[in-house]
């Protein structure tokens, strides 16, 4: 096992920056999720680490070696592909044996390792089959097996679960997590599903447009998103973002809306707003931190219900506030109807404030 360090990694295709100055350190034994919307450069980053495509700039260090110019086979990595990439002409046994054969291990050792891996993944009975004779879930296991027969320094996984149905995905999610705990393996795991990242990873690297947006533990990223993109990408339903205007009323710092109301700020939040470059402030709040009232309350802001989505455990309400849709969760016992007038109360300790121009989270100096 080893650590992986990316230093100012750049990959361009023509004038397009697929990966733009990404720096991060994956510690030995850590499970890091690369997460972001489709096309943000996750696969490219992973392929750069694997050595499948040449880097444009920067450095990649695996263990204590700079591997920039090493062939994939010399980097001591294993990879699980989104489409599994099992060798169609080979049996499951030979798929698992291939990496060992290429490393010229003795036959009996290959046999032992293949059978061990098959036992771990509970597919001893499938060894003689061809990949096309397996279900999607079984193919996925073989792909995983082929990665782990070799005990590489680093595991790279590119959306390994995205081709499975929802139920199998949840099951494999816990299996991969278990596998990480048992092996203490260093894993870089690419996914576009923020829930997968949050539930599985020790740390998550949120990417967008080729840039690394934030790299931290899921709890930190969730609690302290560095910018509006991360805030809206992590969490489901997404954090609501409402663009407002900073001003003062009666000597108090407030956020005002074009709708005419003003939201007074706590002293800490007032200091954050004072640090902003402009008057444009974006208010962010997660659904569970907003209180919904059916009558006017001091400090609550008027909003109009748009949709109501009961899920059984909680009911999600979307309401229009100053031209933006806001998600609120309420207990199922609370009944609201579309187009009903409601009042929303924000928790001053749990709201997020962003600079409307730079889209960065605001901090009190």
């Amino acid at each position, binding site marked *: 096992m080893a650590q992986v360090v990316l230093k100012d990694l750049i990959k361009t295709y023509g004038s397009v920056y697929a990966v733009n100055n990404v720096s991060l350190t994956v510690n030995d034994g850590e499970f890091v999720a690369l997460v972001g919307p489709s096309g943000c450069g996750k696969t490219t980053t992973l392929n750069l680490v*694997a050595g499948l495509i040449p880097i444009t700039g920067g450095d990649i260090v695996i263990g204590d070696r700079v591997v920039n110019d090493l062939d994939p086979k010399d980097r001591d990595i294993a990879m699980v592909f989104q489409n599994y990439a099992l060798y169609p002409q080979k049996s499951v046994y030979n798929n698992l044996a291939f990496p060992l054969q290429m490393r010229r291990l003795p036959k009996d050792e290959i046999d032992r390792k293949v059978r061990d891996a098959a036992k771990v993944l509970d597919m001893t009975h499938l060894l003689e089959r061809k990949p096309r004779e397996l279900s999607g879930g079984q193919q996925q296991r073989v792909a995983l097996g*082929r990665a782990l027969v070799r005990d590489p320094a680093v595991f790279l996984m590119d959306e390994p679960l995205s081709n499975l149905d929802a139920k199998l995905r949840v099951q494999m999610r816990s299996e991969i997590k278990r596998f990480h705990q048992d092996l203490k393996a260093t894993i870089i795991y690419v996914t576009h599903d923020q829930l997968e990242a949050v539930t599985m990873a020790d740390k998550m690297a949120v990417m967008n447009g080729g840039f690394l947006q934030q790299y931290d533990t899921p709890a930190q990223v969730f609690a302290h998103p560095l910018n509006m993109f991360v805030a809206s990408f992590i969490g489901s339903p997404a954090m609501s973002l409402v663009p407002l205007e900073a001003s003062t009323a009666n000597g108090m710092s407030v956020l005002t809306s074009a709708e005419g109301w003003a939201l007074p700020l706590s002293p800490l939040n007032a200091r954050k707003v004072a640090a902003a470059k402009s008057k444009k402030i974006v208010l962010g709040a997660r659904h569970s931190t907003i209180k919904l009232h059916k009558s006017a309350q001091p400090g609550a802001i008027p909003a109009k219900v748009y949709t109501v989505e009961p899920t059984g455990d909680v009911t999600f309400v979307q309401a229009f506030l100053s031209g933006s849709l806001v998600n609120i969760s309420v207990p199922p016992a609370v009944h609201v109807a579309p187009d009903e007038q409601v009042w929303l109360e924000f928790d001053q300790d749990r709201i997020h404030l962003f600079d409307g121009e730079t889209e960065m989270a605001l901090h009190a100096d």
Partner: protein
Amino acid sequence: MTSISNNQAPRSRRRIDGWRWTGRIFLVLMLMYTALPMIWMLLTSIKSGFAAMQFPPQWWPSEPTLASYQKLLDPQNSVGQDFLRFFWNSLFVSVCTTVLAVFVAVPAAYAFSRFTFPGRQFLFFAVLLRNMFPAVIFLVPLFILMRVLGLVNTHGSLILTYLTFGLPLAIWLLKGFYDNIPIQLEQAARIDGATRFQAFLLIVMPLSVPGIIATAIYSFIGAWNEYIYAATFITKNEQLTLPVGIQRFFSENTTDFPGLMAASFMMSVPVVVLFLLLQRYFVRALTEGAVKH
């Protein structure tokens, strides 16, 4: 509901049957169109010279004989010597063409499919440009070229010429094949410890065997049947290939129809055998290369 479907079912079935029968009749006609000449060729080849010229024709030879075949395959007499030499010449030219075509087309198609390099698009269409003109257009220029190269009356001239016909389509066909093999397979192999070349050799090549076989059959048949270039480039009797050889040979010795038909039949044997052995791959290749999954 049930009464309606009961009423309609037989009528619609009858309409489908009508189409099906039209289709069958059409297929039978097509089959006769392609098979009858072959059958007639075979029948004539086992007649005596006299029986072959009779009118009205004998539908079934009254005294079937294998004399023509014996004559052609007998290395002792001059007819047999010539025929066997032509056969050998054709085999040599066709096999060389096929081997070279596969040898060049496989890496070329792979490169066009997998690598980006300057002028890739241009080169790919340049390769096809050759096939946009009828073959005879190049007859004179190629002849002049061969003369300059001193290749007239050698099998080399034919092999080179047939490659210019066969290679472009071979490359095109194989590229379609490689395009359909996911690049992740090679990437997986390279991560599993293979060099780029090993990944190609151990993983990609076996998967493209149907395409390679199709390419090979295509090149072989093209070279085996070619007439015009062979007739132009080769004048020495001992260098002739079968298509030209048979034609010259039998028009010289007044027309011996059973002999001509026996020779033609034997000429079609290698092609038919190749096809029967490999048709499975050929059909698969033509359909697989065509569609992008």
